[in-house]
């Protein structure tokens, strides 16, 4: 599974760094390094909303405080 987080100016100011740190921790805690590939991307052109995160091509819009819920639902949930 590929998870891509936007690190462009706008997403940076909305907290992409916290989200990346949190996701790195969560991936590590759940021993998913082999299954989840975390990537950065520059502006994907959807910055009007929250921080842009895509999971296997599907776009989500996140706030730092939603990261854990997002991880449980969209990452753990999908990995089943």
């Amino acid at each position, binding site marked *: 599974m590929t998870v891509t987080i936007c*690190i462009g*100016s*706008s997403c*940076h100011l909305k907290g992409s760094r916290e989200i990346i740190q949190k996701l790195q921790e969560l991936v590590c805690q759940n021993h998913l390094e082999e299954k989840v590939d975390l990537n*950065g991307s520059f502006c994907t*052109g959807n*910055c009007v909303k929250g921080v842009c995160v895509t999971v296997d091509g599907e776009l989500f819009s996140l706030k730092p405080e939603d990261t854990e819920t997002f991880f449980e639902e969209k990452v753990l949930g999908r990995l089943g």
Partner: protein
Amino acid sequence: MQVTVDVAYKSLNKFTEELCGDKVELLKTADSDIMILADGMGSGVKANILATLTSKILGNMFLNGATLEECVETIVQTLPVCQVRQVAYATFSILQVFHNGDAYLVEFDNPGCIFVRDGRLMEIPSNIRELEGKKINEYRFRVQRGDCFLLMSDGTIHAGVGMILNFGWDWKEIAEYAVKQYRLTVSASRMAAMMVKACDDLYLGRPGDDTTVACMRIIDRKVVNLLTGPPKKAEDDGQMVASFMEGEAKRIVCGGTSANIVSRVLGRKLKPTLDYVDPEIPPIAYIDGLELVTEGVLTLNRAVNLMKRYANDENINEKFFLELDKKNGGSMVAKMLIEDCTDLNLFVGKAINVAHQNPDLPFDLGIRQHLVEQLKVTAEKMGKTVTITYY
């Protein structure tokens, strides 16, 4: 050979003095670059006046093509006479390097010029002429790419006298240290800063005399092309990237959308990293064949601030250079533009980023053009040639 030079200097004031008694003048004529260092007798206001008069007279007269004899005569007749010592006195060194590679060194009573070529110390032959009762050494030679010259006031060779060294730092040891720094540094400013820092350390932070090092390095033209911002009209993407890729240059892209455009037009993959070296600056990215790819305005803002500090000479010491060596995008852009660039070409897109027009953001991102203007002014202040093309 068309010669380009990188010049910079750094001074320490004698402990508790507000004014420096050493003065450096950096000048450009139509066909040469001139570096003059004058050291006024004594310290404080008097020394400052002597040094300033001497360097200004030499500079202005040289600029207007006067001979050395005329210059020295004018100085001797102009300088105010010291009431204590009954003499008018400032020592000086002049180095003039012509664009065709000819060089002319004049030295009067300062510690000898340190001349490093191919990592070795070069001897400057003695060729003394007496003018107005002053013994002046002259040397005419040719420079080569990579040559490095240091002019110094005697505060350098006195560093540490009676404190941690018996007789100060002698010329030979300074020259050896300079040869070492020559290998470790690229720019004139870093070289000057390192030499002066060593003197300050020997003085234990309390210089016993005004101390100045002026450095000139003979370098190649170094062109940097910097692209930032998407063009106003998307159909200009190709043209902008083509111009950006033209000629021999190091290339920087500042901006996420811009990086995507360059990546698409060139058909080369954009590879962002997730390394937050500095929490305030988004990580850098890579595109094959480009020197550096960074986020846009936050990074540029950091880089411009560092460059302004440098151009205004606000605390340019080894700490500043450590900041410059950091691996965040802002420092990396600033370092390349300060230390590795003589000509800067800016390719600036004027498109307005809709996402940046968001009042919820804690930082005004709509300031790209303003930043670019400041970048231009600052780089020009450092003596670099700057062009801007808007798209």
